[in-house]
């Protein structure tokens, strides 16, 4: 858009006000791009000024406290803000500019718009959580024509998840890894895997430097034992502490989860985790359509994008429904035990009370809820 109402599009090279011009990228001078005709008569500077004034208005001159606590929000301001945001955002919602585009693409654009500006899942009310899940399901339906089932189930009262791993049972078959990848829609291209099975030499102790976590020979190999690591869902998780945007947190049932839409991909958490429990999407994660697990949870195995962190969630979509995580179910040797730490009659509690259990790097005070034991 330029100031002299040209009928053709030209790039705004060398001009300063890119922000305002990109606020409506449809390039049209007429028709439903959401902008009012008034906006088109303005220069870029004026437009930007008007837009900013309409959207944040006098808040520009206020300090942070006043912005938050001293906001008058009558119907008029609310409408003003709404129209202003729509005006500015019309560019982003490029498809809605199009008069020939159908209702579906407009709905898609609407969903994208709302998804773009939703808040942190941790701070959402239950209704908001349900709304974002509904949007994601609908969006998937619009894009692929297939229906997924996504849950926003919250942590249950009186549940604290814990895990025990029997290192004398594990034979290194890696069935758990395969089940995990399939269950959690992990990127098949980069062959991401949450679980690592370390092949360790007998008599060398837990020597992770010399352990092999990508062996391929007949197992169990003579003179070796196997141990699996994944996210340990620490009760005092250092990864949560370092997250600058609070995109990861510990749920009430002990699961440490990530809001993939809030994550900015700084990988602080990856560096903070002493157990190598977190994975980063360096490339666009790809899962073949037919292999997608359609039973999803917002905090669990829903589709991720490039540049966000992810990790084991103890299969939140399964565990909150009462099922065992996929790795536990897939293990042919019964080396993996999962359960509710607060239930005095649970099997996990029996293991903790009757077997000789230990955890990795206990001295760090991270309090992992993942115990190892031997027969």
């Amino acid at each position: 858009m330029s100031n002299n109402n040209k009928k053709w599009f030209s790039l705004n090279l060398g001009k300063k006000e890119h922000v305002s011009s990109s606020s409506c990228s449809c390039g049209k001078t007429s028709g439903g791009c959401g902008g009012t005709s008034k906006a088109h008569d303005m220069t870029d500077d004026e437009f930007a000024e008007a837009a900013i004034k309409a959207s944040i208005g006098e808040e520009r001159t206020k300090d942070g406290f006043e912005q938050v606590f001293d906001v008058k929000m009558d119907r008029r301001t609310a409408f003003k803000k709404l129209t202003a945001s729509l005006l500015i955002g019309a560019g982003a919602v490029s498809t809605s500019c199009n008069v020939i585009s159908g209702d579906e693409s407009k709905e898609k654009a609407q969903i994208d718009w709302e998804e773009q500006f939703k808040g942190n899942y941790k701070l959402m009310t239950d209704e908001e959580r349900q709304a974002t899940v509904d949007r994601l399901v609908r969006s998937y339906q619009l894009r692929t024509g297939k229906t997924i089932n996504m849950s926003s189930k919250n942590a249950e009262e009186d549940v604290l998840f814990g895990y025990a791993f029997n290192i004398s049972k594990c034979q290194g078959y890696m069935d758990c890894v395969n089940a995990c990848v399939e269950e959690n829609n992990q990127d098949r291209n980069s062959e991401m895997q949450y679980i690592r099975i370390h092949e360790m030499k007998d008599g060398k102790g837990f020597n992770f430097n010399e352990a092999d976590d990508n062996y391929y020979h007949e197992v169990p190999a003579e003179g070796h034992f196997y141990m699996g690591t994944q996210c340990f869902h620490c009760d005092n998780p250092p990864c949560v502490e370092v997250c600058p945007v609070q995109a990861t947190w510990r749920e009430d049932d002990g699961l440490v989860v990530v809001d993939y839409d809030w994550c900015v991909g700084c990988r602080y958490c990856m560096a903070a985790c002493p157990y190598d429990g977190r994975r980063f999407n360096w490339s666009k994660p790809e899962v073949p359509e037919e292999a997608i697990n359609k039973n999803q949870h917002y905090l669990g195995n829903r589709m991720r994008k490039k540049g966000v962190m992810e990790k084991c969630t103890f299969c939140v979509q399964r565990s909150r429904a009462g099922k065992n995580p996929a790795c536990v179910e897939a293990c042919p040797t019964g080396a993996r035990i999962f359960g509710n730490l607060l239930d005095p009659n649970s099997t996990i509690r029996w293991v903790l009370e009757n077997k000789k259990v230990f955890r990795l790097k206990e001295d760090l005070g991270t309090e992992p809820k993942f115990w190892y034991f031997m027969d």
Partner: protein
Amino acid sequence: MKNNINMMNKIVCFSFFLLIFFSCKHHENEYHSITDKIEAESKNYQGTSISSEAHIGDLKTIEITEGEHTFLIPERKSQIKSYACTECHTKPLAQMQSKDFKKAHWDIKLDHANENTMNCVTCHNPDNMDHLKSLTGNTIDFNHSYNLCNQCHTKQFEDWKGGAHGKRIGGWAPPRASMTCVNCHNPHKPHFESRWPARFNTQKVKERE
């Protein structure tokens, strides 16, 4: 005047103590360790609404009580294809080994302990084929075959009762259903076979080269 100063002192001291008291009381790390937390929070455990009953599905199970543990195990007899044994074993064994009879159980090769310790009749009773027998000759039902195994494998039995040995069926939530010995171990050849891992990560190899 002196009273006033005394009063002031008292107030200052009091507020100082208050300050110390409240500043020490932060709720974030209420417990010293996760074990303390589990112990404290499970005292008032009310049970959850989550049940794994639906995940056990159509599996036919029987409830057993061993010691202080009560749980479900899969029913066995209906899973054995040729049960009841006496449907074929109509005559004493010696007569059935003749050439007139069709060969059966040719695929069973006993690979369990050594010959001195075990043979067929350690567990099977030739006079009562429909049941198993204990070392002392008592009858053991096929559904409760774990009672046969636990004669020798006492440690595994203890772990199994508690839940440290043997895989759960369904989910983590109550009611508990666990595999019984023969669901994972072939009683005639109980060890796990060695095999190739289910997966090899080619990207990791590239990454680390």
